[in-house]
């Protein structure tokens, strides 16, 4: 029983990390219908910024993540406002192609700038854990998990209770009507993309504190975010959190009771089964498929 509880706790914490990576990806996909294939590169860029902050001025990653978020916000805003906006009305394949191109440029840029060396942010508490009953809880993973929950609830509060958040939701639901109400869709889209990139930067900082990273890991995080977003469902800010926790638990249980080789296969099997019975994901909203975009 102790082993089961330990595995479950680890799965939940891992799920929180996945949710943190996916929440920004899900936001952009849900609001703007853009599958951002450069999301993983933003995550890695955020990791490098926090790593540099620690190397230069010894900034703790839990402070460094705000620097990462700020830098990535402007990067994301810039990309959307001056690049992706140019083709935002085009077919989905064009946006896929463009974000894939941005992804390639960012990865190669990071390869040149930071080399392909493996990096990690070292802290004195990085591998600390504490016992809760007979279950050991790793400290940084717990903090990352809590961060994922806080960000999710903050995002919900932001889009429901602030004027800017409501304009983001309105633009996501009906771009034409939002424009008629005086909302600047281009700015709102850029703002949304900037927020998504900022969240990716925070996720990257947590990744860098918990594990190792290098530019080649970008693809893995994009795929991870994609799976979590699809499983959780779009159009609901809690989707990434629910999807992330689900994948984290499934992978953890699969790893415990089956050979490690099956872990990825089982995670995708769960995704397929969920989509058969709930095509919009676990908590996704069907109306997003029929939204109006002009």
């Amino acid at each position, binding site marked *: 029983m102790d*082993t089961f509880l*330990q*595995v479950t706790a*680890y799965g939940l914490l*891992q799920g929180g990390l996945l949710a943190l990576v996916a929440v920004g990806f899900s936001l952009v996909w849900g609001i703007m219908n853009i599958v951002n294939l450069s999301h993983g590169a933003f995550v890695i860029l955020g990791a490098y910024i926090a790593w540099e902050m620690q190397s230069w001025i010894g900034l703790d990653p839990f402070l460094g993540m705000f620097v990462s978020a700020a830098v990535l916000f402007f990067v994301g805003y810039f990309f959307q406002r001056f690049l992706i906006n140019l083709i935002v009305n085009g077919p989905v394949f064009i946006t896929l192609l463009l974000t894939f191109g941005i992804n390639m440029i960012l*990865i*190669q840029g990071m*390869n040149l700038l930071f*080399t*392909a*060396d*493996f*990096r*990690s942010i*070292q802290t004195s508490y*990085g*591998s*600390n*854990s504490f*016992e809760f009953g007979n279950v*050991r809880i*790793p400290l940084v*993973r717990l903090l990352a998990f809590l961060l994922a929950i806080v960000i999710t609830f903050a995002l919900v509060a932001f889009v429901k209770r602030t004027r800017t958040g409501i304009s983001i939701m309105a633009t996501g639901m009906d771009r034409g009507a939002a424009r008629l109400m005086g909302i600047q869709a281009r700015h709102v889209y850029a703002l949304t993309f900037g927020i998504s990139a900022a969240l990716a930067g925070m996720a990257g900082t947590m990744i860098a504190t*918990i*594990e*190792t990273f*290098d*530019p*080649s*890991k970008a693809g*893995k995080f994009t795929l991870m975010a994609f799976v979590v977003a699809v499983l959780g469902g779009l159009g609901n800010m809690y989707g990434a959190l629910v999807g992330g926790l689900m994948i984290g638990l499934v*992978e*953890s249980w*699969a*790893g*415990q009771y089956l*050979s*490690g*080789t099956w*872990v*990825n296969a089982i995670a995708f099997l769960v995704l397929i089964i969920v989509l058969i019975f709930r095509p919009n994901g676990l908590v996704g909203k069907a109306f997003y498929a029929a939204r109006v975009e002009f």
Partner: protein
Amino acid sequence: MSKKRKSIAATIAASSLLMVGVYSIPAASAADVLTITIGASVPLTGSLAKEGLLTKEGYQFCQEKVNALSTSTINGKKKQIEIVYQDDTSKPDIAAQNLSKFNDKGIKLILSSYGSANVNAQAAVVEINKQTMVDSGGADDAIFNKGYTRTFNVMSPASEYASSMVKAIAELAKPKPVSIAFLSADDGFSKTVTAGGIKTAKSLGFTVIGPEYFPNATSDVSAALNKIKASKPDVILGSVHFVEGVALIKQSKELGIVPKSFAETVAPPILDFATTLGALAENVLGSSQWTSTAKGQDRYFGNAKNYAAEFKAKFGHEATYHNAEASAACLAMVYSIEKAKSIDADKVRSALSTLDMLSFYGKIKFDSTGQNTYKPMSVIQIQKGKIVTVWPRRDAEAKMLWPYVK
């Protein structure tokens, strides 16, 4: 012939004479030099970019040394080697395709990519194209049990990676541990490593726990650790790459698993391992294809210490075993070309099959399958942040510190 046609003919004739003239100038000055082109498809981007760059450095260093010091001639001409590179993006299919591209350009002599999956794909293409390849990055025994005759591996086989550490522990650890837990990534190379380690552990009387597998390149190995936690193994031996290797140490601490020692393949000899893990890396054992205490020397690099010093002066970082095995592969190719006195792929292949040489890298000699089964692996340990050789005894720089946690 019309005036116009005469004019065109005159122009063509003049151009031809001019071209002959232009090309005859360098041809005359280069008449005494034979440039030997060797193809190398290495992962410069993607998940193996780090190791790919180290491999490329090793090849570059070899080219520089050979071209500077070579005195032997082929057909009366002084030889120079030119290694041309292609990025295989860490993907086996691209690694294989690149060799066919080389073949289309008439390049028959090949230095391998990095990673067993890449080299496995390349070895098949080398047979089809009748090229000859010296392998510096694919140690999986599975590459060499398919009957291929044109791929030669300078490295010790994969089955020796974990086995060498088990032998070192049996010989040097006091008190001798009782149990070893084997944790492994699930790729072919790592599984071969694990099988070799388990076989040796059983033969030396250790109690074997596991093996437990996790997905290749994962950063979460907690499930495998949870499975062996209750057994309280004396040693945790990981057949891992860098990412899994770091995760194994970090997550063991998170989960409160404290064996007498950690031993890992591949990861600890990479310089980033100690810098990434800091104090957690202390006393971790690792297996290495080469260290700067290796015995032997050759006329291009001298001994291992010379190699290490000159390499650091050129590239600004310590030579890793990835660098050394790449240089050694290139060296084996060069010696075989000199022995064959030809750049014909078949003749070089024949020379490789009978090559028996000592070098900065140790002994290079290939068995009937193309593997260098004559070179032992070294065991290193992270001590005060530095990589030091602790086994075999004759090459040891320091005593093996035991146990991991007192």
